[in-house]
């Protein structure tokens, strides 16, 4: 019956539009500070790697490729934090884990095998050239993602604490 359709869809549609606040949670409070720092690192690592890849990729292909990867990871986390919501939380968590793994692996490699990295990346020496922020940021991000207020849709699925 075509007449029944509006009635069936109506309430659901209203529900979706009625609570725009639902998505908030990741980019507010302490999350706002993280958004600012991830924005800085996205712009910084991104513009730096575009410039390096465009002008002198041959000098240090590994370092410059890693810089580009780092920039993409920062950008993904930034977007996820700003968007908020359940899926974004998962994406941001995966991004922060990847970022932490990246800074630990690349940081160790640059100390063990410095010749593979003729030019530095944001993750070189555990981010020492960037006040160790690349090392602190993913840890702070993961802590915040655990504590950030949930949007209610997945709150029951996780054990308290």
């Amino acid at each position: 019956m075509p007449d029944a359709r509006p009635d069936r869809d109506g309430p659901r549609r209203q529900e979706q539009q009625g609570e725009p606040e639902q998505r908030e949670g990741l980019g507010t409070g302490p999350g706002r500070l993280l958004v600012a720092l991830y924005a800085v690192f996205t712009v910084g690592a991104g513009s730096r790697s575009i410039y390096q890849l465009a002008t002198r990729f041959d000098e240090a292909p590994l370092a410059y490729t890693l810089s580009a990867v780092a920039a993409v990871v920062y950008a993904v986390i930034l977007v996820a934090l700003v968007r908020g919501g359940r899926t974004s939380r998962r994406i941001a968590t995966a991004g922060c884990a990847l970022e932490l793994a990246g800074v630990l692996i690349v940081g160790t490699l640059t100390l063990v095998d410095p010749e593979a990295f003729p030019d530095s990346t944001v993750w070189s020496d555990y981010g020492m050239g960037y006040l160790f922020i690349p090392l602190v940021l993913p840890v702070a991000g993961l802590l915040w993602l655990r504590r950030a207020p949930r949007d209610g849709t997945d709150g029951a699925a996780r054990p308290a604490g």
Partner: protein
Amino acid sequence: MIDALTLAISVAALLLAAWCGADALRDRPTKDANFVGMAVVTLLVLAQLVVAVVELAGGERPQDGTVIFVAYLLGAAAAVPATGFMSLAERTRWGSATVAAGAVVLAVLEVRLYDIWGGAGA
């Protein structure tokens, strides 16, 4: 580039960072006085932007490349205003912390600008 201006911006940015950082520790959002501070720092940065553009137009070139120099210049100009607007949306201690972070970023960018232009005597 005027070294005194670069130094003044660095010091002003660090003062702003300490001020807003202290407010964050005391659980205070940004207040009107903070925004006056941000405005002062932003005016100094805009003056630097004008000076740099005039010098570039006059044929002077930064030691490490014009593209990088201009990128850092724009980043420096954006840091404090951008975090200032974020603190308007975030009326908690974390708004103050965000401005403090933006000001620290500005101070770091000033050091890099100094290096890119060519350091002392430039």
